[in-house]
């Protein structure tokens, strides 16, 4: 007897490990949920007011597929403020979440370049996005000492083997580790010499502290080769509104826009107007949050290290990645605490927690630790 249509479909679905990669939320489920990669704050009343004004004046219709022009211009201006030039508004696509940005960029570019190199430790959403029409995958080894970043040598080897597309996170979603400027420069040279392309998730870059951040898109000539993705203005309360961005080259902007049209026509206007307003004062607002995150993170890292907990190297103030025992992790879970599990990224044993001012999570870890030891 032949297997039925539905049974075959479901069997294939069950076997698709990439597509079934765990889902990680951008918004916490409770006060004890520290599984996001940055804390979620309240929206400024001015953002709400301005958005509702837009809705009341009739901005409730379809808008241009790549997003409303003022928002695309604001994204361009924000990138320029970060030293990333050469991504005009016509190269920006506003998406219905960071995940949609991942999906669009990966699906469109792998259609043309069907082999992709990606770190073996990476956000599970990347694998899920590749689970539909999977291209050839080349996993890059990562280095513990750098915070699980792939060494540039490993990327070079993949390029030498003929891979033309590299997917990278900087800062890394598990540890917050960002590539050193010198590594970014070397990488740019490699892309150039191998005629290769990159998708660069720099969503967490606004949280980098204590060290300059260099985007691969900031280097000369890279605008042709590098597609930047991320949340639109993270950390100012937009997370629940599901809004992301893509900044790309002329080559990819058109097919990405076409696929966006097929997938969702356009991004919700309320989310876009909220992002537009939130973007106006982004630097000041995030600056305030960042200052408090830095203090809390530093204190936490000192306390944890003093207690013998291994904290993985990382440069963002919004998260801490640490290694604790399975028993300790489970006992914290039993108490209702939620962390992102490194196993979901491809590195079991690591737990990631968002730095959240005012929470007692680090004290809790320390007290559980000392209880277990005594």
């Amino acid at each position: 007897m032949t297997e039925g249509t539905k049974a075959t479909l479901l069997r294939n679905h069950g076997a698709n490990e990439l597509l079934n990669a765990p889902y990680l939320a951008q918004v916490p489920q409770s006060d004890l949920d520290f599984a996001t990669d940055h804390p979620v704050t309240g929206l400024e009343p001015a953002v709400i007011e301005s958005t509702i004004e837009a809705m009341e004046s009739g901005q409730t219709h379809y808008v241009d597929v790549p997003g409303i022009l003022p928002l695309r211009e604001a994204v361009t201006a924000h990138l320029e403020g970060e030293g990333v030039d050469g991504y005009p508004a016509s190269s920006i696509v506003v998406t219905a979440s960071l995940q949609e940005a991942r999906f669009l960029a990966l699906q469109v570019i792998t259609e043309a370049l069907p082999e992709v190199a990606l770190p073996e430790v990476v956000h599970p959403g990347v694998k899920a996005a590749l689970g539909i029409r999977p291209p050839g995958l080349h996993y890059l080894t990562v280095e513990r000492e750098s915070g699980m970043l792939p060494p540039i040598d490993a990327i070079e080897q993949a390029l030498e083997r003929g891979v033309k597309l590299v997917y990278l996170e900087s800062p890394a979603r598990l540890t917050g580790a960002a590539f050193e400027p010198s590594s970014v420069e070397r990488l740019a040279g490699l892309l150039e010499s191998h005629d290769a392309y990159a998708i660069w998730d720099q969503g967490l870059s606004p949280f980098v502290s204590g060290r300059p951040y260099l985007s691969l898109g900031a280097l000369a000539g890279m605008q042709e080769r590098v597609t930047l993705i991320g949340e639109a203005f993270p950390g100012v309360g937009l997370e629940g509104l599901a809004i992301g961005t893509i900044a790309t080259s002329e080559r990819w902007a058109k097919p990405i826009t076409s696929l966006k049209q097929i997938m969702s026509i356009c991004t919700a206007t309320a989310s876009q107007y909220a992002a537009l307003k939130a973007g106006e004062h982004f630097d000041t607002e995030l600056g305030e949050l960042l200052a408090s995150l830095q203090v809390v993170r530093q204190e936490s890292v000192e306390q944890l290290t003093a207690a013998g907990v291994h904290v993985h190297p990382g440069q963002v103030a919004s998260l801490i990645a640490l290694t604790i025992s399975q028993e300790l992790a489970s006992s914290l879970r039993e108490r209702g605490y939620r962390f992102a599990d490194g196993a979901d990224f491809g590195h079991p044993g690591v737990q990631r927690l968002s730095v959240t001012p005012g929470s007692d999570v680090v004290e809790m870890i320390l007290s559980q630790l000392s209880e277990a030891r005594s």
Partner: protein
Amino acid sequence: MTQEKQKKRGTEVLYSLIAEARGYDDAVVLGRGDPDFDTPAHIVAAAKRAFENHANDYSPPEGILPIREAIAERVQRINGVEVDPNTDIVFTNGGQEALFLMVVAAIGEGDGLLVPEPNYNTYKDAVTFSRGVSVGMPTYPAESFRVDPERVRATLTPDTKALLLVSPNNPAASVISRDDQLALIALAEEHDLLILADDIYDLLIYDDFTHTSPASLPGGKERTLTLNALSKAYAMTGWRTGWVMGPADLMVRVKALKAAVSGPASIVSQHAALAALTGPQEPMEEMREAYIRRRGIVLDYLDQMGFSYGNPQGGQFVFVDIGHTGMSSLELSQKILSRAHVLAYPGGAFSEDMDHFLRITFLQPEDQLRDGLARMKQAMDAISEENAP
């Protein structure tokens, strides 16, 4: 023609016409499927409350439980389909994402989706994305674009995995009768096909026609994924609010796809949709009545212009036969646009075989609609004079 070229003909042609229409200050757009009505005020008010109270609420990829419960109540009441809000519903970024997820869920490389022609372009685009094959099944104006189960049977190929049923159909505005739905389900059972049903226009039905969801009929539910959205009936195109529903086993796959494609929809859009479904229905009813009046106006003008058309049984548009003009639909559409500044969509953009049709929507206020149609009539009169022997 290859699928790639067809895609160009379709979506790209429509977008370039929209761009041209934008260049005219006095343009009347009888093309795009976007209601002229703004979203009803009570829905915007609910969005404001959601911004204030729920902006940081967690949502799973399939949407918060209250919106899934409201959808379950709605489809039970309106479509007669019983679904479990815990397992059978995924809230989406509009009907479009629902469509994309449904097609990607059902159609893999080399699989066939049987698509009655003419149809909304995105179906073919989504099948192309899935590396599947869309198999067109022609319908005919003389039969009011009926999806004839016997013709469907004749079109099946060994690779056909699913059957698309859009009722009322865009752009043909035809409704699939209950008897035909039953016969189509029997055919699906016989050939072990899934059914993809698009109910997006289920509240916009005219005269004595009635809407039937295949999932409400015996044998239908376990093999049907159904999409719906609030975009059209509630004038909510900008909020991106829709859903897929289906049997729990298939919905496991739709849910995983939703997480992979985009994750949860905006929490504010979810609350706006909740207000639309659970709040006062009068604004929606008023819009519906306006569409009924406008449909009458459009049909009057078309009669005056001597056009024939399939009687629009539902939806927000009329599919008009322009065969007697001897022009291609794009040619005529462009002529009407440049002379009368009125945009009607060329049928050729929906299907190769529909190049002798125009789609005219009634999504403009009555005065503009009359103005646009009067201008179109003038242009048509002039065109026929020029073409007269």
